[in-house]
């Protein structure tokens, strides 16, 4: 609860949308929108106040740096160099001289102000359409000073939403597996960080192998696989309290867990006698249900956002392919028919697509297809990559990539990468150690 940010919509001005700027996110954007992020202005007293608490010389600039970085990495915006700015931040926030911003080719402008009020951080910001010389949006937030990074992310989300018409994905976190050590003896820990790589924290010590963490819809719980006491089992972890428990009482390996969209169930595989089937467990009444019943390997289940369907991976045809069924296990249909093997299907939060990993002729691809298997589109090819996870707005995929080792078996690394659904804007997400199995949280400020 302390994490919640109070949003005061104190000067929200409804805009009549006539010819104001808009950014199309449905296509690869080769001409990102040039925009100016003016540093948030701050009075000397507030500056000193925050410097004392946060050890940051100018929190206004720090917050606008976060906004700038988020907008740049989205690939949709091109934040202009601050050195070219002609107008001072404090004055720009009151009344921008649009000619000046026009001169440096900014089409949009973000201005704002930071105040230190009653031990709280108060931030207001405005988004301006430079060409139309109009204010597009104005918002203010009040929160505890420690939340300053989140304020930057929330401003980024608001700007993204106002300019693209879709929710953003900046005020989010990534849970992943941190990796260290030689390839034959990797030490793996659960780790969590902000979407931009800040605030990295380790959640386990590395004493046992851990794999495939996934958030619940509220992003407060994580389900994952742990080899605690050499018994690979699905666990549930409460991020705030740190409490962990085994999910269910299965006489063998459980793996590949995910939450249902309402967060009430965990769906996973249970392996026994060389067969892996899909099960669910209700977290409230602990009732376990068997969903698939087939002598093949059925794994990597993922629910549709309405909870009515499940996509999963099975080798019942002889090789790994993607299937869709109703949530009770009936009506199983194979949907992948292209060349190669298909794995790790994940249903888009928008409901219309399934992202997957494909192995074909020695190469690994991340791709998407419609939920009936049509319209397959491969976004990226590499030596090894897998396990895509969707941004909460369904526009970006995060996944991990491993390198090929040299003839001596050296040079192994695993890193997180993201790519837009358009197939553009591929970039590495920096982590303090090697990393794999990323899972994207929902939008935290909703």
């Amino acid at each position, binding site marked *: 609860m302390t994490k919640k940010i109070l949003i005061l919509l104190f000067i929200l001005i409804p805009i009549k949308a006539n010819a104001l700027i808009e950014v199309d996110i449905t296509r690869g954007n080769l001409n990102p929108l040039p925009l100016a992020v003016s540093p948030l202005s701050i009075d000397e007293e507030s500056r000193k106040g925050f410097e004392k608490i946060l050890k940051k010389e100018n929190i206004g600039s720090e917050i606008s740096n976060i906004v700038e970085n988020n907008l740049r990495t989205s690939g949709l915006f091109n934040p202009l160099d601050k050195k070219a700015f002609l107008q001072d931040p404090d004055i720009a926030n009151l009344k921008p001289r649009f000619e000046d911003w026009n001169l440096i080719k900014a089409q949009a402008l973000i201005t704002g102000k930071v105040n230190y009020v009653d031990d709280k951080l108060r931030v207001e910001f405005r988004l301006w359409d430079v060409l139309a010389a109009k204010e597009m949006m104005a918002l203010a937030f009040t929160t505890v000073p420690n939340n300053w990074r989140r304020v930057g992310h929330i401003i980024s989300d608001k700007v993204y939403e106002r300019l693209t018409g879709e929710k953003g994905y900046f005020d989010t976190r990534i849970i992943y597996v941190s990796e260290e050590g030689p390839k*034959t003896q990797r030490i793996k820990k659960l780790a969590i960080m902000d979407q931009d790589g800040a605030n990295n924290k380790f959640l386990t010590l590395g004493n046992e*192998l851990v794999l495939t963490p996934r958030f619940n819809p509220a992003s407060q719980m994580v389900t994952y696989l742990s080899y605690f006491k050499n018994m690979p089992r699905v666990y549930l972890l409460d991020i705030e309290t740190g409490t962990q428990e085994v999910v269910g009482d299965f006489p063998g*390996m459980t793996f590949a867990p995910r939450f249902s969209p309402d967060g009430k169930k965990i769906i996973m595989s249970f392996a026994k006698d*060389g067969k892996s089937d899909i099960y669910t467990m209700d977290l409230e009444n602990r009732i376990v249900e068997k969903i698939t019943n087939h002598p093949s*390997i059925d794994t990597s289940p993922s629910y549709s956002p309405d909870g009515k369907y499940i996509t999963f991976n099975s080798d019942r045809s002889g090789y790994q392919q993607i299937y869709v069924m109703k949530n009770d296990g009936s009506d199983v249909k194979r949907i992948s028919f292209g060349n190669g093997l298909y*794995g790790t299907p994940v249903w888009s939060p928008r409901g219309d697509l399934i992202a997957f990993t494909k*192995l074909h002729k020695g190469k690994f691809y991340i791709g998407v297809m419609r939920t009936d298997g049509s319209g397959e589109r491969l976004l990226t090819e590499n030596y090894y990559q897998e396990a895509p996870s969707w941004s909460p707005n369904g526009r970006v995929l995060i996944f991990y990539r491993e390198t090929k080792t040299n003839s001596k078996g*050296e040079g192994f690394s695993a890193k997180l990468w993201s790519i837009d659904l358009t197939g553009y804007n591929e970039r590495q997400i920096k982590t303090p150690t090697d990393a794999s199995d990323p899972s994207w949280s929902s939008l935290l400020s909703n």
Partner: protein
Amino acid sequence: MRLNKILKNTLLVLTACLVLSACATKKEVATDIKGQMQGDVYTGTDTVEYLADGVPDRVFFATNESILTTASRETLRAQAAWLRKNPNINVVLEGHADERGTREYNLALGERRANAAKDYLMTYGISSDRITVLSYGKERPVDSGSNPLAWSKNRRSVTVKAN
């Protein structure tokens, strides 16, 4: 005539390429692959340890397969004989996959491979009470190489003493 000439030139270029590339890779391939793989199943002994004299601890599999080869069945019969002679020893069968598959599927595949070994041991009189199956998927390779030979060593089920 013209075609002939073109072909001849092409051949010359090709031969030159082959000679060059052979220089770069020949040694490695010769020492690595020769006599160590049949199909894509590992038949070497590099990584093999022994539970007792003449009792290898592991069996190997083809890509995406969990079928036991003739050599694997022989190894497992030796293990079964050894287990019958040592009735107090229990074992863990650790199933593994190579790195060329998705993590979750490989966990299941490792389990399937270890179970193939378990089933065979059971047909030779070893009680299932003495056998635990544990899959590591692709998490614990023995060879960190990114080549067919390394992968073949990693596709394995290893019988480990539990007590």
